[in-house]
């Protein structure tokens, strides 16, 4: 009886281990395949000309420079808007807000905002920024739309980073006669900043790749010249990729895959930066 029990437990253990391994591989395999396929098909298209020139012949030749620049503008615009608002909201929620119905409602709103489909953000941006506030389809409207989409992630990551600063640090500071704001600025924020930056970069890399929110708010099919002000439209990599994959017949695949490759490289550079900042901070962290 006893040996049989051990035998069953052993088999169950083996099976569980196998299923866990399979599940993990199911996550990893697509990532590797996507990377390999895109690199294989796109690397041939990656030339200096491709990165620095305007599209020509109805996108069938030339480069994707305006789309790269447009995406960079949009990421910067998103950051300028979402980072300060996100950090300040996170500070308010974790350090100042009392635990009452209003705070709980805000909490719930943030969680729900994170679940809103990105195309809905696009429609919202069209309604509020483009039409109602009359920004038109513009970098400003697109950045604000992407910013609002990024806020829940930035706020959640910032609150987590702020929450991981030990309470004892706050009490030590307060016990020396610091006001709450002094404590936030001198103790909490410096120690939470790496976590906040990491979370923000991840949110921005998400925003960089989004198509739906910029579809109605900023993205242009084709522009002969670069945007001059924040009220201009711009091209953007994800939308450009969509256009050349669906709207332009007889296009060379290395242009499509090359564009995808540039986009995922930008996103990966951002993600790796986030990981490096986090690793660097963990190494230096003394608590």
């Amino acid at each position, binding site marked *: 009886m006893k040996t049989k029990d051990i035998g069953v437990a052993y088999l169950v253990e083996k099976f569980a281990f196998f299923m866990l391994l399979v599940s993990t591989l199911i996550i990893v395999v697509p990532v590797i395949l996507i990377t390999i396929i895109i690199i294989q098909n796109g690397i041939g298209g990656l030339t200096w000309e491709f990165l620095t020139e305007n599209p020509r012949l109805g996108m069938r030749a030339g480069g994707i420079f305006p789309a790269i620049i447009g995406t960079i503008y949009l990421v910067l615009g998103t950051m300028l808007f979402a980072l300060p608002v996100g950090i300040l909201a996170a500070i308010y929620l974790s350090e100042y807000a009392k635990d009452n119905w209003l705070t709980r409602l805000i909490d719930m709103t943030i969680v729900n905002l994170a679940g809103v489909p990105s195309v809905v953000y696009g429609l919202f941006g069209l309604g509020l920024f483009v039409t109602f506030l009359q920004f038109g389809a513009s970098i400003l409207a697109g950045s604000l739309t992407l910013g609002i989409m990024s806020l829940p992630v930035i706020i959640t990551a910032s609150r987590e980073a702020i929450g991981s600063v030990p309470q*004892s*640090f706050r009490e*030590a500071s307060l*016990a*020396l*006669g610091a006001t709450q704001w002094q404590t936030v600025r001198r*103790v909490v924020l410096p120690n939470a900043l790496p976590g906040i930056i990491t979370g923000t970069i991840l949110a921005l890399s998400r925003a960089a790749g989004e198509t739906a929110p910029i579809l109605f708010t900023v993205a242009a099919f084709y522009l002969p010249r670069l945007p001059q002000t924040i009220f201009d439209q711009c091209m953007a990599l994800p939308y450009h990729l969509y256009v050349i994959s669906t709207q332009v017949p007889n296009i060379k695949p290395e242009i499509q895959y090359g564009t995808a490759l540039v986009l995922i490289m930008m996103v990966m550079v951002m993600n790796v930066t986030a990981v490096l900042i986090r690793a660097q901070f963990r190494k230096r*962290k*003394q608590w």
Partner: protein
Amino acid sequence: MVNAHTQPSVKITIQNLSVYYDASQVLRHINCEIYQNEILGIIGPANSGKTSLLRTLNRLNDRVPAFRMEGSLMIDGVDVYKKIAVHSLRKRVGMIFALPVPLPLSIYDNIAYGPRLHGVRGRKRLNELVEDGLRSAFLWDEVKDRLELPAMKLSGGQQQRLCIARTLAVGPEIILYDEPCSGLDPISTAKVEEAMIRLKKDYTQILVTNNTKQSARVSDRTAFFLQGELIEIGDTEKLFTVPQDKRTEDYISGRFG
């Protein structure tokens, strides 16, 4: 209770103080006075309200949403909860925690943290305050050559004296110690106690301790708390030799607690 031949001036007056966290009452109608320049030891088993009293004194309990108090608490006759802004109160009433809490800064910046909060800017003045603080806490000789070292690299006992130095640097009148030696070895403990005794001439100190012997060694007077009540307060020597209350006697002789 008070020595007949001395007339100590009262620094802190506690009147009919009760403290609650939500429905549970942790301090019950406490009445006592704490004198200028004395060390008052507070002893008692766990959950007797010792730490709650300290955190009510410097209003750290304000951070606890469930906290509620009745009665009054005065420093130099001024009501702590009604007449003093909380951060200026805490500047006057320093606190040393059970576990040393060096901030993740250098030794120098830890000590300079408080003065900088309160507007001290000049490097020369800061240097003075850092040196004075560290000297008063008997840490100067051990760290004077490595002030830029992260404070967390110091040993536990050094960290606790760093915290004392940091508290002294903001110029408090009262220092609260919440079981300051609970994590320290006997030698470090002796150094902290030595610092406390030398600080008597300038500060009023309240020492909450789980170690009755520490109170006997260091404090002028001792108060015994049990389940939120102040059972007995008096000269340390008297309280430890001829306790007035049976429960005090049981506790200090180790029959419970």
